C-alpha cells in the first residue's frame, strides 16, 4: 500500500540514492534538523504514556489536533546518540504533519525498512517501528475528549 502522498514522494526520492553512504548522509542531515517538542506541548519530565515502548533512544511522541481535522506531530529524543530516532522524527513530522488520523493510520511499519534498509538490529528496528506505531496510536486518539 502506498504511503500518504507527501511521505510516498519522500520515500521515492530517498530510493534514488543507490549508494548507501549517500543515503546515510541524507538521513544524518535530517537528524541535524531535529527540534524537540515545544514547551507549549510538553515539558520534562514527560508523561510515560508518551514514551515510545522499546525505544532505547528514549523517544517521546505527542499528537495534537490542528485545523481542518488534521493533527500535528511532536517528538523528543532524550538520548543524544539517538540519531536514527531523530531522523525518523523529522521524517514523520515533515511528511505527516497536518494529515488526518485516518491518513496517518495508513502508514505501515515498513516505513522503517524503506528509510533505513533491512540491516538494522532487532532493538533498533523495534524502537523505530515503535515510533511509527506510537504516532499512529496517538493520532487515532488525538481528538478524544480528555
Amino acid at each position, binding site marked *: 500500500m502506498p504511503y500518504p502522498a507527501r511521505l510516498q514522494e519522500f520515500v521515492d526520492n530517498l530510493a534514488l540514492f543507490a549508494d548507501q553512504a549517500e543515503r*546515510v548522509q541524507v538521513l544524518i542531515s535530517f537528524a541535524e534538523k531535529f527540534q524537540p517538542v515545544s514547551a507549549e506541548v510538553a515539558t520534562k519530565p514527560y508523561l510515560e504514556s508518551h514514551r515510545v515502548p522499546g525505544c532505547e533512544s528514549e523517544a517521546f511522541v505527542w499528537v495534537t489536533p490542528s485545523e481542518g481535522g488534521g493533527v500535528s506531530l511532536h517528538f523528543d529524543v532524550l538520548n543524544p*546518540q539517538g*540519531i536514527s530516532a531523530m531522523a525518523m522524527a523529522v521524517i514523520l513530522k515533515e511528511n505527516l504533519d497536518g494529515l488526518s488520523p485516518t491518513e496517518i493510520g495508513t502508514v505501515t511499519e515498513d516505513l522503517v525498512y524503506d528509510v533505513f534498509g533491512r*540491516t*538494522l*538490529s532487532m*532493538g533498533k528496528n523495534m524502537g523505530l517501528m515503535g515510533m511509527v506505531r506510537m504516532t499512529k*496510536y496517538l493520532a487515532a486518539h488525538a481528538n478524544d475528549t480528555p
Partner: protein
Amino acid sequence: MTSSPYPAIAERGYAHPEFLVSTDWVAEHKDDANVRILESNEDPLLYPSGHIPGAFEVDWTRDLNDPIRRDYLDRSAFQALVERLGITPNTRVIFYGDKNNWWATYSLWVFRLFGHTNAAIMDGGRIKWVNEGRPMTKEIPSSAPSSYPVVERDDQTERVMRDEVLNHVRANGQLVDVRSPQEFTGERMHMPDYPNEGALRGGHIPGAKSVPWARAIDPETGEFLPADRLKAIYQEEQGLSPDREVIAYCRIGERSSHTWFVLKHLLGFPQVRNYDGSWTEWGNSVGVPIERP
C-alpha cells in the same frame, strides 16, 4: 568536559585492567602502528556522523553476522574482516561505541571467539569522548590490507548454546539475566498490539538472577564502576560466586556481552559464557522451563 569521579583504571581493583583503556589513553595511542581503534554501534548513522579520527567501523549486522543463518561470521569471513581493517594477531584492538559500549563489548566478544585476546574497551564509550570535547571526524580512514591467519571459531569457551543452558539449569547452575526488570518478570509494558520482545513467552530462565546490565555503569560518566562496587552488586547482593560457572543472557546476546565483560575481565570470574541465543531463542523454544514471579 565531564570529569571522572573514579581513580585511574589501574587503581580501580579490576582483575584484568588491561582490557579497559581510558579516553586519554586512546587520544595518546590511537595512531600507534600496533593499535587499531574500532567503533561499534547499534545506530548505523552514528559512525558516519562523526567518529574518533582514525577509527574504523565494525557494523554488528553487516560485519559480524552470517547474512543467512542466525550465527556469527565464519573463519574466512573473520579473516577477511580483520585483514580489511589492517589488523594482525599482534594488533591491540580498542573497541568503543554507543549504548555505553553494548556493541563494543559485543564486538570484542565476537573477536574473542576467534581467539583475538589482544583487545580492550574504551571506558565510557563514544559519549564520554564526545562529552570531553575531543575531536571527531567524518573522514573514513583507509588501511593497507594485513595478513591474518585463518582461525577456527571457538563456540565452547565464551559462548554457550541452548541445550547446554538447559543442562546448566537442571544442575542449578548460576545464570544472570541482564535485561530490564520488566523483561525479567515477563510484564508487558507496551501499548496494545505492541510485539513482546520477539518472543512468544515472557519471563526468565529458572534460577537466573536479575542484574540489569546498566548497573555496572556510572550513569553520569558512562564509565564502569570500580571493582568494589561491582563486587557489591554481583557477589554480595546477588550471591554470584566466581568459583562456579556463570551464564549471562539478555534478548539477543548484546547486553549480556557487556555483563560477560564485567564478570570475566573486571571481576575476574574464570568461567563466564554468553548465551547469545538469549530470550529470543529461549522464549520461543517449545518445552523449555520458564520462571515467572
